[in-house]
């Protein structure tokens, strides 16, 4: 009798262990899948993956009026990637714009938007990145013009222009609107291209989403202004564009936006897409567009 009870107990213990293991594995897989969604919608690969290079192992140089930035390696390689970063350090990088070594990042890395991301999404993103194959590839040092090459100047920049803050839902708006606002402002960081910057590279939120030119990137006005923005586009037009890249006039997206669509918005589920459109169509219209030449 005793023996049978012992075997029973052992079986029970093994079963419990397997069950806990399976739940843990499933949860981890779930987390990684969520993280992939964040990675895709955030378009992380658009900057951090080189042309025909390994995923997230560092990207093409980003040429701006301030100089050339080299997007670093996000794979789990311990020397050249984020392999040694703790979870706290990863969260700090995105929400505060501070590297594990305590250095401030240049706002070419859009931490000014990612600061609004939830810890939950950032953890998921990290789980996804940690599951990628590690690639040894060190990004070159940024090559910036004076005075932008003086990194300590970033502390002044931050003092002037950066306030770490999480996304706060607006209780007077619908859940859909708030979801859209979070996707556009935090993860999607649409404003980083579509909002103009001042001469120090800080976003001018008085003209939020009113279109901007940065180096070779021209991001048009995406406010609902009927003449300069997307006011004449129907919700169906917007949804069709974000799924296929085809505009109402038969032209298609190019450059950065084509990447955003192919890797990001084309893969969104209907609810998230509708949320983004709900938010964009509620923006304050701006009647100008620096990308349109007279």
């Amino acid at each position, binding site marked *: 009798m005793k023996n049978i009870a012992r075997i029973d107990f052992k079986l029970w213990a093994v079963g419990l262990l397997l069950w806990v293991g399976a739940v843990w594995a499933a949860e981890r897989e779930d987390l990684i899948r969520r993280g992939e969604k964040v990675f895709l919608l955030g378009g992380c690969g658009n900057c951090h993956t080189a042309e025909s290079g390994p995923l997230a192992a560092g990207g093409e140089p980003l040429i701006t009026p301030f100089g050339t930035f080299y997007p670093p390696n996000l794979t789990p390689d311990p020397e050249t990637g984020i392999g040694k970063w703790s979870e706290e350090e990863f969260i700090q990088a995105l929400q505060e714009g501070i590297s594990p070594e305590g250095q401030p990042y240049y706002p070419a890395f859009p931490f000014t938007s990612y600061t609004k991301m939830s810890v939950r999404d950032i953890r998921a993103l990290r789980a996804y990145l940690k599951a990628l194959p590690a690639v040894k590839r060190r990004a070159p040092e940024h090559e910036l013009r004076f005075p932008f090459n003086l990194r300590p100047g970033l502390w002044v920049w931050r003092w002037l222009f950066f306030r770490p803050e999480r996304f706060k839902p607006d209780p007077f708006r619908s859940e859909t609107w708030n979801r859209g606002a979070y996707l556009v402002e935090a993860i999607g960081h649409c404003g980083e291209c579509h909002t103009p910057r001042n001469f120090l590279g800080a976003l001018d939120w008085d003209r939020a989403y009113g279109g901007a030119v940065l180096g070779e990137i021209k991001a048009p006005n995406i406010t609902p202004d009927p003449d300069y923005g997307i006011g004449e586009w129907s919700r169906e037009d917007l949804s069709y564009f974000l799924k*296929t890249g085809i505009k109402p006039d038969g032209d298609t997206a190019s450059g950065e936006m084509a990447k955003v669509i192919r890797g990001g918005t084309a893969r969104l589920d209907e609810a998230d897409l509708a949320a983004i459109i709900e938010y964009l169509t509620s923006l304050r219209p701006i009647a100008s567009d620096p990308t349109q030449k007279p």
Partner: protein
Amino acid sequence: MNKRWFVAVMAAACISSAWADVKAIVAYRQGVMKSFGGHMQALKAILAEGQKQFQPNALFHGEAILGLAKSIPDMFPQGSEHRKSAAKKEIWKNFPDFTSRAQTLERLSQEFVQAVKGGDEAAMKAAFQKMGKEGCSACHEKYRKD
């Protein structure tokens, strides 16, 4: 002798095409690109905005895109960069890749034409989206200035 004549004429043709007026090439190219856009806009109205009364024209639009797609590589001769052109110089650095993207549009517009001939609306819509996304936009992504 005939063969030599042929080679000489071809060489002359190549050289003269290199010297051809870049502005005129750009003008032609932009005209063709606008035509693509026009047909795409018309097809979108038919397939996505419910203008079904124009559906009989879908085949014509599709065949026009197919016909023009074939000549894309020829519209971008070496050195036809221009200030007013949205063509990126990467085109001539990666010409085989550029050509293969043009061939992708050709293949996808062929598939669209087949779908129109097949008459199944869902298939037509899917083929149209694919053509826009993987045919037009995929090439614009890399080779057209914003």
